[in-house]
């Protein structure tokens, strides 16, 4: 029988990840203990720790044997320690100095660290300098006295930093596109609320300069993104004007707005095709426009008459389904997605208001999820449908025992936990041809649910008596058992198998079994080189550890000890897998 290799636990890269994570866990356990007891430490020790780390890190960074990446990382840590030292001095001596001074001094102390190009330090300077500027204007009331001066300074500083970025740190240009997007959209909103021309200029000034630069350098992706940002800003203005023109008109205004948005973004795409003839990035504004138009269409369908909205919703979904089935053209498919989502929103919303039964909405959503699979849509569309199904099921379970917004009811708590583990069990599904194209959607859905579950339901066992604690052990145990039978047992043998099993059991006992599921998803992301799932998994790891820090049900000492034990077990796992790989390599050579 051929052994499936969906989760390659013996992959060298995964073993390296285990090694890194073991140290991360151990470091986090120490960090928790210090952070939780920070204010209990004597002032002198508090004041000594950050400068000491700064000096030691700087000393390590001068070693010749270090790679440039490691040296940059160490200098980045130095930059953080500079800020931390200032924060600790401010905390120990509560002088009430304005916080802009802290960020100003931090920025000035960071500048010399750029003697050697360092993207981390530069990113830090961009953040601290912008904070300095904003806090200075706010805390000295200059923001009220001279609002346009702030606008000018903000644009000037952003453009200077953008200039440095494109000269030396091009990887950060996407961050500046996001920064220009915020300046642009906020500027437009402020212009519309006060009709002050400087805000209108600010809404387009940096964005147009950015677009012109990317156009000149033939950076088609960034130029398209910038065009989409400017398109969104102009759309806000358009929508506001249309709204003003047809103040007393009926709901059809949304239909009109949707049409205008669609035409407007189609024009931007046409313009991009004209200037970048070989580009494929013209689709970005088109997609943004399609989804914005979808929002307007959804608004149109939602404000309509109730029963008619149901019919319009179904009609939209039907038209979208036909388009998705028949056409592979990008423009048509984006239009179909937006029609589908808006129709679906209207249908589900009014179905609930007509029937007053969440169960019907849930059944309808499950049906929509099933039929959307057969149109072979984009993975993101399936992800939205999966998350919508989870969300509706979640609300249904909350409502079932008339305890909406309260998870105190034992039964509700039990049901929601069952629902989450139902989603987690998707990881265990055999990876047949039918599911393989939507693996990314499945994993991202599991990751989203894991984050939601940890944030709102709690990570560690609650000691209160009304909670049925057995379910916390039973569900993850079942998951682990199934995983062991379907995957683990086929890949690992002997002591390594039992070590992995022990790690799972340990995490169940400690109350954060989600960490095990995250590791399994990580193996898949590494194998498939799926950087989206990989990045989101790492982000969820950070969130889980963050949530654990703020869980006050157990003492920080217990938390710290449990994470330290997990780190040690991870290290042991790394060692065992590494040894086995080495052994296999030697046997292979023989």
């Amino acid at each position, binding site marked *: 029988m051929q052994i499936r290799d969906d989760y390659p636990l013996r992959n060298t890269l995964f073993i390296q990840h285990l090694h890194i994570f073991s140290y991360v866990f151990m470091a986090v356990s120490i960090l928790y203990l210090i952070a939780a007891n920070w204010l209990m430490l004597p002032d002198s020790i508090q004041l000594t720790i950050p*400068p000491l780390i700064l000096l030691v890190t700087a000393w390590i960074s001068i070693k010749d044997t270090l790679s440039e990446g490691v040296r940059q990382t160490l200098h980045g840590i130095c930059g953080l320690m500079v800020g931390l030292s200032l924060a600790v001095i401010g905390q120990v001596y509560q002088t009430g100095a304005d916080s802009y001074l802290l960020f100003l001094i931090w920025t000035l102390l960071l500048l010399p660290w750029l003697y050697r190009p360092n993207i981390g330090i530069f990113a830090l300077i961009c953040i601290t300098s912008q904070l300095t500027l904003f806090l200075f204007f706010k805390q000295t009331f200059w923001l009220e006295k001279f609002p346009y001066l702030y606008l000018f300074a903000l644009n000037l500083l952003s453009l200077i930093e953008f200039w440095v970025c494109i000269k030396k740190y091009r990887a950060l240009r996407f961050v500046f596109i996001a920064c220009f997007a915020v300046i642009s959209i906020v500027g437009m909103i402020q212009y519309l609320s006060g009709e002050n021309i400087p805000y209108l200029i600010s809404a387009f000034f940096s964005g147009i300069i950015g677009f012109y630069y990317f156009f000149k350098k033939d950076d088609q992706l960034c130029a398209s993104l910038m065009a989409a940002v400017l398109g969104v800003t102009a759309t806000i203005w358009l929508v506001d004007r249309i709204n003003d023109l047809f103040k007393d008109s009926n709901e059809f205004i949304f239909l009109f707005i949707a049409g205008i948005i669609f035409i407007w973004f189609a024009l931007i795409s046409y313009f991009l095709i004209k200037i970048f003839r070989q580009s494929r990035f013209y689709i970005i504004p088109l997609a943004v426009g399609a989804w914005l138009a979808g929002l307007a269409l959804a608004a149109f369908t939602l404000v309509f008459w109730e029963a008619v909205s149901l019919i319009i919703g179904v009609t939209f979904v039907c038209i979208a389904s036909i388009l998705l089935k028949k056409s592979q053209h990008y423009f048509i498919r984006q239009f179909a997605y937006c029609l589908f989502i808006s129709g679906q929103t209207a249908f589900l919303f009014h179905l609930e208001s007509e029937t007053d039964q969440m169960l019907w909405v849930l059944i309808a959503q499950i049906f929509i999820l099933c039929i959307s699979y057969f149109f072979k849509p984009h993975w993101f569309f399936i992800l939205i449908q999966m998350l919508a199904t989870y969300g509706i099921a979640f609300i249904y379970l909350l409502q079932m025992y008339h305890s909406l917004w309260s998870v105190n009811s034992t039964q509700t708590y039990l049901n929601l936990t069952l629902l989450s583990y139902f989603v987690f069990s998707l990881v265990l599904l055999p990876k047949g041809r039918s599911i393989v194209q939507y693996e990314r959607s499945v994993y991202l859905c599991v990751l989203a649910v894991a984050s939601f579950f940890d944030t709102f339901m709690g990570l560690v066992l609650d000691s209160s008596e009304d909670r049925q604690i057995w379910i916390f052990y039973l569900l993850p145990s079942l998951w682990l058992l199934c995983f062991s039978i379907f995957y683990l047992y086929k890949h690992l043998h002997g002591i390594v198998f039992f070590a992995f099993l022990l790690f799972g059991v340990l995490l169940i006992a400690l109350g954060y079994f989600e960490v095990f599921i995250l590791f399994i998803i990580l193996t898949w992301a590494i194998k498939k080189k799926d950087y989206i799932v990989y990045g989101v998994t790492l982000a969820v790891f950070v969130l889980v550890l963050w949530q654990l820090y703020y869980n006050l049900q157990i003492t920080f000492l217990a938390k710290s000890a449990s994470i330290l034990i997990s780190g040690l077990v991870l290290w042991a796992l790394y060692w065992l897998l590494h040894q086995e790989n080495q052994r296999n390599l030697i046997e292979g050579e023989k």
Partner: protein
Amino acid sequence: MKKYFSLILAIATTLFFVGLIAKNEWHLHHSKSIFIELKPVDPRSILQGDYMALAYELNLQTSKPLAENETLNQRIFNHASIRAKVTLDSHNKVIRTILEPKNLSAEQSLILKNPENRYQALYPASRSFLFAEGLAQCYEKAKYAEFKVNLKGEAILFDLRGEELQPLNCKKQKNWWEGTIKDL
């Protein structure tokens, strides 16, 4: 030289921090303690852990009477910090705070911060007192805030005190390894 530049930078930065610490220590040791009565407020912040949000009974007055239709808020409008003088009793408790003092050179100066352009929101040095998790019950007994104030009126929030100005000694009531208590 370039090789050692990072270490030189780190040493120079640390020396700068030592200077900052020395300046603050000098302030603490060469300034006067004054005590301002606290108003009850709600403690705890999600991000910072336990902390006491502070509000003060400053008993504000102005040296120059308010004109007709003039409010105190107008007097302090768009001034980031306000210079004031405080009248103290025999225990250095603040009895009243006088804004815009001109001929009160014998009184103790105090600089107040004005974050919101509202005289009710004026405060000296700090509006929060940070403390370790689990000490909230002990700090609830605080009735006065102790400030170390220099001649220029610059203040450092030093400690919280009880009804009779007695030290609360909250830190000594708990060992660091206990962390968060279970019944929080």
